[in-house]
């Protein structure tokens, strides 16, 4: 099954520059319907108003961190099936283990390149 690049994608990061980078990389991959949120709480609110086919979130954010956001998504019957990729500089084993326990779909460690992003999206959604 090939990836539907017309789907809505939500990117979440408290660094505006990082949102811009991910948005541009997604655009190059073919995703044009991309929304942005600057923390987990705002992202959660947006997910309850609009359906997203993919969430790409940072971990280290305030007030709601990426891991808390992921747990909230997985606890919500209406959202729990949403593919969720964590893109973060947190690269310690305990972080990866905790993310897996919380139900992350894939995990990308920063800094990353376009090929890694595309590969992980393909791993979650299917080949392009």
């Amino acid at each position, binding site marked *: 099954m090939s990836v539907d690049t017309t789907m809505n994608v939500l990117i979440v990061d408290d660094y505006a520059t990082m949102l811009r*980078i991910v948005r541009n990389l997604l655009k190059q991959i073919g995703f044009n319907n991309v929304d942005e949120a600057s923390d987990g709480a705002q992202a959660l609110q947006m997910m309850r108003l609009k359906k997203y086919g993919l969430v790409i979130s940072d971990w280290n954010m305030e007030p709601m961190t990426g891991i808390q956001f992921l747990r909230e998504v997985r606890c919500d019957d209406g959202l729990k099936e949403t593919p969720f990729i964590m893109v973060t500089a947190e690269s310690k*084993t305990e972080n990866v283990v905790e993310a897996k326990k919380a139900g992350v779909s894939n995990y990308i*460690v920063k800094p990353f390149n376009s090929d890694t992003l595309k590969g992980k999206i393909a791993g979650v959604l299917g080949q392009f």
Partner: protein
Amino acid sequence: MSNVKAGLETQIRKALSEKTIPPQLGAVGSNVGTLMSSWPSDKGLYVELKRLAAFIEQTKAEIAALRPDEVKLAFLPKATDELDAIVKSTAEATNRIMDAAEVISGVADKIDAEGSGKLMDAVTSIYEACSFQDITGQRITKVVTTLKVIESRIDQMIFSAGATGEIAVPVSAVSSPESLSDAELLNGPALPGQGRSQEEIDALLGF
């Protein structure tokens, strides 16, 4: 100290001879005598106390010479401001680079396929490289957090030395790896060799 010992022995001997205390307590007197004889002499104890007092005074003088108030009120805030300025200026520079990259990307859409492909590859590399700003920002945040910890330790040191005359060792909460809180999981970018690579993370996740 020997005066005390001698006084005690005299009192005990006198009480025993006058039979004002039970004879069994004679053994107590003997034990007290043994204990007293193993204590430092008056002079030795005095020398030790004097050395201890000198050490405390020296420590206080050294703390004062460090000018902890200056460190707390001037150096640390200045260092924090400088670091904030680095984050701000790198963010501005990154945004300017991204502006230029987006213009190039727009041009790439209007030219022939071969040229467009090359330009887009270059633009992708620029985007990837720009993520340094996020990593730099997170590293600087870690440094600022460390500076705040140092500030707090200095406060503790001043308080401990001033209030009790000795440096109290702060008891830090040590968590077991099995019970890490969300806050303890916020470590930011790891230094080379300390974190996991993407390949290791993939292996951990089993993806």
